[in-house]
């Protein structure tokens, strides 16, 4: 791969220098929620798309995560704003049929169990309100009405009524099923092949696959492909799934997010043994309970001490879980960037390459919207929101000054 000067943007008139008679062919690396979304919207715009995945759809974080489509959990600043766009995108896709039956509105409850946590929740509520989000204060009695059985230690809570939930793998499957993108499983990309400063295809094992443009949406696998080993770190999260507490629909009326989760998200605690507790009632009637945040861990194994610690926290917050059984434990790997923001935009040096990775614990929420915007970038169109804070350029600059 021969680096070129960071050239003019892709908003060129002659889409990648291709004759306009043959459709643009895009190789999308990674069939997670982001790659699937980009492929869907690229194909819808008439591009020819080949999706390549080292394993198969949803093999990465997308298939080993929770699915909070939540503004409530976001750090103030660009993430909170972009999450509002991304959630609105879910609502739109639900209404126009694409995500019908897969995206469900439900409240997030931010709950505090100590005075310090109550302060944190209040601060976060103020930040959400400032970003334009609806925030409702709920006292303990009202909360007990909504979520009977809640633990004695819960002292304060805020309700964020406009959040939602979607399972990453279901969204991915729907996006793929409703597009003509061709999918290649067991196709690990080893290299983006450059010619005269622009991408001309990708290498899969010993095979060269020509393409007019390349989207790197390979989660943590993006790091070796782009030489971003210093910038992207894996952050393992362990979770547990229970049996069904109800036969139809969520067992409780909202998503419980402990202040400990906000503390991790706002960067107040950074500790591999910290539990950022969420208790998520799934549509199946099961509970998804998580999770750990273990930096520099990219394996998918789980350990009993961590899962037990998660469950103890969960029982303190919501004691009725004692009646449930754990069906399985699993771990997923979040892709975190050094400054905590995703990386979405044109490659600073390689023409014809777009990057969309680094979604950490927010990619189910952000993924469809960001994939759609990556598609726009590849098609030479402007994104639907201001993505400048996410530009890969910011690391190019840091590197230059270092």
């Amino acid at each position, binding site marked *: 791969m021969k680096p070129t000067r960071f050239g003019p943007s892709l908003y060129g008139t002659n889409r990648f220098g291709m004759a306009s008679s043959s459709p643009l062919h895009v190789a999308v690396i990674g069939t997670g929620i982001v790659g699937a979304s980009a492929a869907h919207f690229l194909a819808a715009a008439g591009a020819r798309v080949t999706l390549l995945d080292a*394993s*198969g*759809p*949803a*093999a990465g974080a997308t*298939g080993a995560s929770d699915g909070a489509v939540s503004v409530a959990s976001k750090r103030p600043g660009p993430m909170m704003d972009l999450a509002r766009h991304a959630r609105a995108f879910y609502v739109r896709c639900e209404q126009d049929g694409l995500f019908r039956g897969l995206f469900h509105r439900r409240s997030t409850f931010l709950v505090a169990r100590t005075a310090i946590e109550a302060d944190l929740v209040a601060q976060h509520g103020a930040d959400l309100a400032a970003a334009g989000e609806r925030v409702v204060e709920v006292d303990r009695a009202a909360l007990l009405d909504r979520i009977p059985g809640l633990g004695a230690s819960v002292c304060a809570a805020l309700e964020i009524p406009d959040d939602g939930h979607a399972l990453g*793998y*279901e969204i991915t*499957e729907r996006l793929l099923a409703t597009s003509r993108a061709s*999918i290649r*499983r*067991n196709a690990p990309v080893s290299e983006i092949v450059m010619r005269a400063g622009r991408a001309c295809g990708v290498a899969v094992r010993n095979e060269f696959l020509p393409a007019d443009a390349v989207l790197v949406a390979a989660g943590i696998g993006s790091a070796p492909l782009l030489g971003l080993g210093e910038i992207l770190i894996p952050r393992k999260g362990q979770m*547990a799934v*229970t*049996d069904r507490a109800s036969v139809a629909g969520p067992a409780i009326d909202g998503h419980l997010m402990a202040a400990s989760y906000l503390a991790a998200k706002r960067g107040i605690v950074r500790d591999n043994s910290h539990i950022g507790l969420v208790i998520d009632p799934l549509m199946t009637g099961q509970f998804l309970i998580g999770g750990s945040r273990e930096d520099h861990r990219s*394996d*998918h*194994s*789980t*350990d*009993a*001490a961590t*899962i*037990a610690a998660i*469950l*103890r926290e*969960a*029982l303190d917050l919501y004691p009725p*879980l*004692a*009646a*449930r*059984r*754990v*069906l*399985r*434990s*699993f771990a997923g790997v979040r892709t975190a960037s050094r400054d905590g923001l995703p990386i979405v935009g044109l490659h600073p040096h390689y023409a014809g390459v777009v990057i969309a990775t680094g979604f950490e614990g927010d990619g189910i929420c952000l993924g469809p919207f960001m994939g759609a915007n990556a598609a726009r970038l590849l098609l030479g169109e402007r994104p639907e929101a201001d993505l400048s804070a996410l530009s890969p350029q910011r690391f190019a600059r840091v590197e230059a000054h270092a």
Partner: protein
Amino acid sequence: MREAPILVVGAGPAGASAAATIAEAGLPVLLIEQRDQLGGAIHRQPAAGNEEHVWRPARHRRNWAALTARLQASAERIEIRTETIFLGVDSEGRFLFDDRHEACVFARRPRAAIIAVGAIETIRPFPGWELPGVMTAGGAQVLLKETGRPPEGPILLAGGGPLLPALAAQLAKAGNPPVAVLERGRPWNAPAALARLALSWAPMSEAAAYAAALAASRVPYRCGAVVTQAEPDGDGLKVSIRVGETQEPLLVRHLLIHDGIAPNRTGIPLPDPDGAVPILLAGDGREALGADAAILDGRRAAMQVLARLGHAERGAPSDERGLQRARDFQATLARALQAEPIVPPPETLICRCEGRSHADLAALAPDASAREIRLMGRFGLGACQGRFCGPMIAALRGQPLPTASPPRWPLRPVSVAALARLTIDETE
């Protein structure tokens, strides 16, 4: 610091034999069994307060008496934990157990582990197999052994393999002979295989005993007969049976189905005989070779562990010869009873936990990954984690149900409260 024990999971013939062999060599053993009693699939004892013993061939009774005597003789070196379920091994190398008695999960680090969790029953799905009144033959046998009483009303046994006549004989001896035994294979079409089987004295004398019991109760044993459907009919079931080109209905109360057994590997750690903590499989859980072979295989695994730990010679060659004989016997039996697979109709249920059908399975891409089969197909995702539907899916897809790697724990559902009370014993 205490001396860490050798872990043996499963107290069937294989586990009992392994535990006794290790204890006799002077090493401590931790023997884990999920049921409230030892014995495994074949020597299952009546539940407490119930004296009825189900009829078993004398050879099996003698073998089990010998094993229990050996366990007794080494009792001070064997810690037995019943009603305790092995949940798997976590990423820290901790072996996890669900103590159902104390309602808590505990973790141990053994010096070595022998996993002898036996086999699972397989069935071939047909529309209606999930209805009340349909049960696996093995499940019915467990009930029979524990209660001493057969189910009431007309019983039909169907499927394939030697358990069918064995259970039919036990039902007959217990007072309710089945109306028929339907074997899908046509052994008379495989005379060479039959001739070879006749040379295996112990299993054939057992088969002869079952045959005599069936003949005495006039239970028809029909070969080449297959159940194609079961439908509810009043209190019972209307079962459609196909023999050659003809279809016939039969009204029964209970339909007991069975199509052989396969090693139970769901969530079980992969064998690692040379690891820092050697892990070996033994008995039907390693290779489904039957009860006699399980005793040999338990000893073989124990000898291998002892040799690894510098305590004894390798296993006796006679064990290997005995295992090979059992392997030959099972292969010949399989040849004698082989039957063409039948593709079940699309609506046939495959995964009972998540309610997924054959059509759902067929809709998956042929090269679907493990994730896609589990998450998007929802196969192997429910309470049994694919233990029961896995072999059916393997047969229908022509390739094994991909398993999570590393194997996932808990391999059985475990109470949230019990797991939250996890105790980790680090004194070993």
